[in-house]
């Protein structure tokens, strides 16, 4: 299996099928991150497409010293944060699109999921994005630093604040009841 940077090199040389492989690899994570950043499926879809279109346009300037995933996550993070700045949370939190768990999941699990989603949405976008990169995209602190250009120390302290805010918000809304 070719690594990301090899695929980028091939895209730059005009091989579109390599770009399709990159889309396959990252679209799911980016779409889901966007969904948790904007809480609207159509907007998340549009923003995800924007991320890949921008990535393609900027690929000629890709710096091969960096890893592709941190580069595309950075584009995604910027898109998401910019969108949040342009569209501050004015809608009722009740209007947030629930994430579909499928029929196998219990109602309680779905309720918990929506509660978690809502608490994440309440969080400042700069903090939320770090939680998403850490726990949804599975990046380490160093990788988050690479993707966001925020120093590791700051990532750690911001994540600390974000986690505490999330935990306390969930406690207040009865997330841990019956556990």
């Amino acid at each position, binding site marked *: 299996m070719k690594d990301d940077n090899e695929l980028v090199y091939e895209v730059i040389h005009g091989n579109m099928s390599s*770009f399709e492989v990159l889309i396959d690899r990252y679209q799911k994570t980016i779409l889901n991150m966007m969904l948790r950043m904007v809480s609207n499926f159509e907007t998340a879809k549009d923003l995800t497409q924007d991320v890949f279109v921008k990535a393609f346009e900027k690929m000629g300037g890709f710096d091969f010293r960096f890893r592709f995933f941190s580069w595309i996550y950075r584009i995604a993070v910027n898109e998401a944060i910019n969108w949040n700045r342009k569209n501050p949370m004015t809608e009722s939190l009740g209007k947030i699109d629930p994430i579909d768990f499928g029929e196998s999941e219990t109602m309680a699990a779905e309720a918990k999921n929506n509660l978690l989603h809502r608490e994440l949405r309440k969080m400042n976008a700069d903090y939320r994005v770090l939680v998403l990169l850490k726990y*949804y995209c599975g990046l380490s602190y160093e990788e988050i630093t690479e993707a966001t250009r925020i120093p590791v120390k700051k990532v*750690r302290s911001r994540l600390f604040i974000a986690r505490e805010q999330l935990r306390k918000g969930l406690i207040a809304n009865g997330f841990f009841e019956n556990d």
Partner: protein
Amino acid sequence: MDFLKMTEKEIIEKIYRNLDGELTKADQCEIEDYLSDHPEAAQLSKEWELIKIQMNKEQKAFVDIDLKQEILKRINMETYKQPPKTAGFLIVRSFWSRPAVRLGFSFVLGVFVGIIIFSFLKVDFKKANAPTKDMKGTFYDSRSFDNMKVADVLQYEDPLTKAVCNVRYSTKIVEIRVDISSLNLVKSIIEFDYNDFKVLNVQNVSVNDQSSAVVAANLIQINNIGDNKFIIQLYNKNSLSHNIDFKIYQNDLSVYHNSVQVNKE
């Protein structure tokens, strides 16, 4: 780890790092011991573990739709005329995209443009210096004199003496250029109120050994024999309108007396 010395925040941070699998085995054992002795901390750890489980469940339930075709369609529409650059150009672009290179290039370009603009503004140095080509040692170029307002040009001539006194001024500076020629000793006095003016500079531009200029607080006296040139600069202390007197004496007899007004309203 000495938990006694740690703040609550540090302990919580350790718990998070333990849950994220970032601690060494020794540290893990210590934090596990600590959690078994501290129910509140254990509760926090359990709560965050539940949050992580919920997040993992969400990850498994990630929406999985294929946006590939839509993305490729948009790329074809939006970037058809701008395909990615070739790798050869890529290396060059990554070099030029470095901030240091950009700044350096901007600096060099700025200097270059500055030189061009400066050379346009200065137009012709030789031409600009032409009227004062014989004024050795002066650091006041004639451009500033040419740009000043003309107060008056006083002239005196008799068979033995010829004097031209060109007076110009700006708001703060008065510049007087004296061309004087005489066969015998002639005293030329430029007189003013010392409350209004201060002598900035007296330049002997082209002065022979027998001639000299003497400066006092309220006057400048030129003792002249032969052909000489002087440049005098006065500082107008209050930028108001004032008079400057010109007197010429031959054998201590006044032969000429006139007055020039600067900073005319």
